[in-house]
């Protein structure tokens, strides 16, 4: 069964951050359509700063905790607590592990998802990042013990989840006031969540041995 070493896997988070920073403008633009247009700025600032503090030697959990700390103590907004809890609760699961296998990875994802739900109290279908996160984590866990296949399943489900928000009416957050006017636009958080999961999958797959 394929695994990857926790040590040095902090680089995965740096790659995730690079994708977010690159998509700063795009994420703000989506948020601007039905939100307040700052999602890309908030995300890029938090992920960008964290990336500068992550070294090549960092474990994945250390890198996730660095990111979580930056989000929670320097970024605020909704992303601070939501992604802050996501990465903190994921880090808890893998802390101290030398190798990460597919089951651990799945447990990690599930814990992160639960952290987001605990702080944000949103539900699937509310047009939030949960609409990416839930199907993606479910797909990963349902894919069995083939790590690369599970990662591919997660990516596909994340993309489908993100796209599912297009036709949703927002039920929580700033956009919820829009009612029907919120339909027809992707949710910004669902989009950034898809980027995060996709980049994580891609970088993880490269490391599997």
């Amino acid at each position, binding site marked *: 069964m394929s695994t990857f070493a926790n040590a040095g896997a902090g680089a995965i988070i740096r790659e995730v951050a690079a994708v977010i920073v690159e998509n700063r403008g795009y994420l703000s633009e989506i948020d601007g359509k039905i939100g307040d*247009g700052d999602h890309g700025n908030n995300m890029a600032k938090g992920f960008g700063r964290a990336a500068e503090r992550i070294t090549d030697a960092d474990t994945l959990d250390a890198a996730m905790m660095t990111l979580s700390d930056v989000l929670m103590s*320097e970024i605020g907004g909704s992303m601070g607590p939501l992604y802050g809890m996501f990465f903190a609760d994921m880090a808890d699961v893998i802390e101290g592990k030398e190798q990460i296998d597919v089951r651990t990875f799945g447990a990690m994802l599930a814990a992160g998802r639960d952290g987001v739900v605990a702080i944000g109290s949103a539900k699937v279908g509310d047009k939030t990042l949960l609409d990416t996160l839930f199907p993606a984590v479910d797909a990963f866990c349902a894919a069995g013990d083939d790590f690369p296949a599970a990662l591919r399943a997660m990516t596909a489900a994340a993309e489908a989840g993100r796209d599912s928000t297009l036709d949703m009416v927002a039920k929580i957050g700033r956009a919820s006031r829009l009612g029907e006017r919120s339909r027809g636009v992707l949710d910004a958080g669902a989009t950034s969540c898809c980027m995060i999961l996709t980049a994580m999958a891609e970088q993880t797959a490269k490391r599997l041995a």
Partner: protein
Amino acid sequence: MQRFVNDPDAIVEETVRGFVKVHSDLVRLDPANDRVVVSRDAPVQGKVGVVTGGGSGHEPAFIGYTGRNMVDAVAVGELFSSPTAKSFLDAIKAANGGAGVCVLYGNYAGDNMNVKMAMRMAKKEGIEVLTVVANDDVCSAPAAEREKRRGVAGEILMWKIGGAKAALGASAAEVQAAAQKAIDATRSIGVGLAPCTLPANGKPNFQIEPGKMEFGIGHHGEPGVNITELKSANEVADDMLKIVLDDHDLATGDEVCVLISGLGATPVNELYVLYDRIESQLAAQGITTYRGFAGNYFTSLEMMGATLTVMKLDDELKALLDHDVATPAMGVNG
């Protein structure tokens, strides 16, 4: 984008730095956290601490209400973005005079989450924290779902009342009750005439066509009830007042506090024009404006438009409203 900007990501830092320089007689920076502005007087031993916080770009809100007899410490967020849980925690600590702290803030997802986390951390440190969540923005949810409504300029009156109550030596529960009573008695509505631009984005988040206005707009450009033709100042004032009164149980003989705030780029004289009409129309209905405010009290960068806030008064609220206050954004000499 015709604006005075260095690095868009440094605006908040630079703003806060300039702010505490200008108002050094009233406020200071928390030495532990440069996103926390603290009243020069705080913490007052034995006094309930009053804390608020919110995104930047609404200046003079939130920092401008720090000072004597109003807010003791403010957590400062990025432009239009909630402060961190850590900043809320540090503000709570800076305001804590040992008698508990009331966090009086606005109903936004980010603020709710960050305050929740800060409260958890404060409790661990042995600080009693109570909260009041402002939800004065009538158009942000129907009356049946008041708990979903956002907080807007009515927050200022909540801080005024809560701050005065704390200054008078009330307990944390009493301060909370007074602030809650204030916001329960308060309704607001916003009208947008032109959008605003976050410097990091370089272009407006939303559009309002020339000749149109967005009725019921939120403080970050959250879409309102509808988009209509731009009407005359008096018609707009009347429409705003109707929304507020329809949601409020005001009767002949009632006394109110009226606050008109510009959203940033509307000329100040037009705010007085709106005020003049609102006061007259209230008077025509037998409602007396006991005290009024008109100015740029709670802005949204360079958005054009205005908000109307009406608070129904009783003797307690009147006394608290009249209590002396000295802050950068509001001075009342009783």
